[in-house]
Each structure stands twice: as C-alpha cells, then as structure tokens.
C-alpha cells in the first residue's frame, strides 16, 4: 500500500500554552486504510488532523502529504488532496442554497461551471439531498447538514478524507448510512481517518486504530488488539465498545468486533447448550 501522509517527529505548541498539544509524533497513513484516532478530550486528536492539510504547521518536525512538506505548501493546495469534515456543520454552512454550498470548494479551486454542475448533481444524488438543492443549508436538520458538509468536501474528490467526530448528533439510521458510505469510499481506494470517542462506531469499520493520550500516541494497531486491551483503554480514559463488553461478559476467548460474527457465535453457543 502506498504511503499518503507521513508525520516525522512532529510536535506542536499553541501560542501562549505552556505544554505541547502533540509531542514527537511519528505516524504514517496509507491508501485504502480506515484509521480511527481515538482518545479522550484534550488528547491532541484535532491538533493532529489539522496538520494533515497544513492548517497547523509543526513547531518541530515535518508532515509530508504525498511527499510534499506541508511547511512549503498552502492550505488550499493541500486541501485538494486532504479533505476535512469538521465536527460542527454550522461552522462551515454559509451559502444561500445547498447547491452553492457544495459548489463552494470547486469554485475556490477554479473548476468551470459545467464541471461544477455535473459534480454537484452527482454528490446530491449520492447523499440523497437533491430535493434541497435550492434550500438554505442553515435551515436543514442536523443529519441533513452533516450530509451537505460531507458532500461539500467529497465533491472535489480528495484522496484522504478526515472526519472529525462524525457521529455526534446522528441517529442510529444516519450512523448506519455513514458506515455504509465509508465502506464505499474505502472501495474507491481512499484513505479515511476518523477522529472519534464513539468506539462502537469504529469498532468494525476501521482497519487500524491509533490511541492518543496527552498529545502522544499511546498505541496503534489492529482494532482487535487495541479494543480488547481494557487497561490500555482505561489509561486513555476510554470505555470499550459494547461488543467487547458483551464478548467478555459471555466469556468468549475470540476477539470479535463484527455484529454478524457475534450473532453466529451466540447461535453456536445456544445450539451447543440445547
């Protein structure tokens, strides 16, 4: 797999703060990966992702996006490759219509109107928001706003998509749709980075989990190895996902993270006891 983003000994300190928000981070992100970055509040997750498109430049160390040092590129140049969907949709919605909101980035990047129209229509169909084409994005519901913000970033087809706390404010069905959508993006060979507290959401879709605590990477690896390490999660102030609690409650030795696998296992247990 090809390396897309690389952090080399990256530390960052906000102006006026005594401590570093992130310290000596060495990380790589590859094509076709779904990486979940987990950690409690103040662990440095958002600071880390803001380095991926140059919104923050490292105090020490370097970040490379497809080999380009972020210190030597503008945010606009890097954003073509790395799209970030921020947690609060209200922070980005401003246009008069949903169409204009989705077209905003394309206009900034200098696409012609014919191509903009084609891409925006495609995105509106993809996210089932065509009926709101002429509505104000500010007046939509929380889930609809989230879809508009996702569409407004995906419309320029970035290679890496970063989702900052994507499940906040979403109901069960919306979360299910988001999961489905992430799987589709993975099939399109994109790199998806999800920053979250919601371990239930990322337990079965991520291919790698990075645990952050106090600005440092505590651990990273296969979700099955990370999410079954109760002590590790406790140290990072995180609760194991429900499926892990269930597996441990049932006394299973297997490290199961998928719902279907768990159903199969319970079926087998019940059959054995009949």
């Amino acid at each position, binding site marked *: 797999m090809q390396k897309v983003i690389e952090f080399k000994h990256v530390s960052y300190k906000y102006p006026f703060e005594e401590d570093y928000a992130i310290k000596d981070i060495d990380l790589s992100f590859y094509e076709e990966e779904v990486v979940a970055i987990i950690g409690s509040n103040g662990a440095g997750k958002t600071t880390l992702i803001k380095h991926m*498109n140059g919104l923050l430049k490292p105090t020490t160390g370097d970040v490379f996006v497809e080999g380009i040092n972020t210190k030597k590129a503008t945010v606009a140049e890097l*954003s073509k490759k790395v799209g970030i969907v*921020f947690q*609060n949709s209200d*922070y980005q919605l401003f246009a008069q219509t949903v169409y204009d909101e989705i077209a905003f*980035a394309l206009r*900034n990047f200098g696409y012609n109107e014919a191509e903009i129209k084609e891409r925006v229509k495609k995105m509106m169909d993809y996210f089932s928001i065509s009926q709101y084409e002429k509505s104000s994005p500010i007046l939509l519901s929380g889930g609809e706003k989230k879809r508009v913000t996702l569409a*407004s*970033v995906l419309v320029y087809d970035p290679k890496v998509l970063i989702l900052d706390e994507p499940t906040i404010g979403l109901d069960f069905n919306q979360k299910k749709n988001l999961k489905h959508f992430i799987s589709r993006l993975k099939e399109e060979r994109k790199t998806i980075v999800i920053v979250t507290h919601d371990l239930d959401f990322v337990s079965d879709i991520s291919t790698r989990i990075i645990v952050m605590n106090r600005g440092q990477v505590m651990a990273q690896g296969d979700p099955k190895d990370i999410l079954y390490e109760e002590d590790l999660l406790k140290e990072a102030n995180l609760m194991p996902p429900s499926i892990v609690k269930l597996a441990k409650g049932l006394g299973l030795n297997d490290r199961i993270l998928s719902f279907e696998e768990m159903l199969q296992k319970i079926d087998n247990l019940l059959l054995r006891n009949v």
Partner: protein
Amino acid sequence: MFRPEYFYFRKKDTIIHRLDPRSKLVYVIAMFVWALIRGDLLFLSAVFLLTLIPISLGKLFKNLLISLRAALFFIVLIILINYVFSHNLSLAIALALRFMILISSFLIFSITTSPDDLALALYRMGFPYDFVLTFNLSVRFIPTVMRDATNIIDAQRARGLETQKGFINRIKNYVPVLIPLIVVGIKRAINVAESMEARCFGASKKPTTLYELKFAVKDYVFIAFSFIPTIFYFLL
C-alpha cells in the same frame, strides 16, 4: 498576524492579577489623567517608566511589546504629524509617549482583570444587575467568539478559501466566515438565554453573589502608587 489571545484576560498568579478591580480602575483613571495633564517629554517619560513596574509585576512585558507593535503605525504617525506641524521633536515624541502610557496602563486593567471580577465590581459600585450581566456576558464571550471564528476560518480554508490574498479579496472572502459566525452566535445566545431562564434568572431583583470583593493592603498600596506622578509633577 493578529493574535487575539494577547489582548484579553488570561489567568495568572501574580500580585497584579490578585488586585481588586476597583483599585486597578483607579490606577487606569489616574494614569490617563497624568498622561493628559502635562505634555513635556521628561514628565511623560517618567510616567511611562512608572507604568512598566506593574507591567513587570504582572509578567506582561510580552503583551506590552505586542500591543506597542500593533500600535506602531499610530505611534509613528503621531510623531510625524506633530513634528511636521511644530518642528519640535521632543514635543512629537512626548505626544507619542502619552499614547504609549494609555496603552500600557489600560493593558494592566484589561489583561489582569477577569470579567467576573469586573462585573462584581460594577455591581458593587451600584450599576443595575441586568446591565452588569449583559456587560459581563459580552466580555466573557469574546474568547468564545474568537475560537468560533478560528474554527470557521479553518473549516473554510480546508475547502480552498484563501483568506490572506490582497485587501479586497480578504474582505470579500470573509462572507463565508461572517455568516456562520453570526448563525453560531445567535444560536449560542438563544441557548444561554434559555438555560438562564431555566435556572430562575430574574426571580430576584437583587441576587446575592458567590464571592465578595474586599480591599486589602495591597490595593491601598497600588492606589498610592497611582499618585506617585504627583511627585514628578512638582519636581520635574
């Protein structure tokens, strides 16, 4: 680049931060009077040097330098205009010093006084509670609005918005920042109002306060300090 965090209250444990806001208010008014009462270089230099003592005690040298740098354009302008019209360099510098005294003394008040303490001081000075609360909320929300603005700028820059290219472009490009900022601000204001009403705001015309302000020896010393320029006034 403009960094708002250099201009609003930040908690620190220094003697200046611990002073009663009323004594700092007296200091600011006194320094304003001293800055305006005489216009000669020697007197104003002495007053300016005097304001550096509380700046040093409050560990605010960095803030002062940044504020002076931000005001550098006006300082140079004051010197130039006054020199051109009066051909008196010492007068031109003295008038710039007057401006610097105002900055230096007001900095002590704005950066070391928490909005809560200031509101309490105003309340105790007899201002109506509604007025004090409105004032306090508007001051307290400055950092929050700044943080919102930073997040919004980040979100829009991540979609290719250039905020640093040319003056006209910069103004035009602030529309995608201002609209979300206003929307988020109104939403927050509604939430705060509802949450205050849910906690019986307005039930009593004269609510009690959690803390009481008390004048201590250090406050009297600081007020006395504010009048040191009286000596300069007669000696220099």
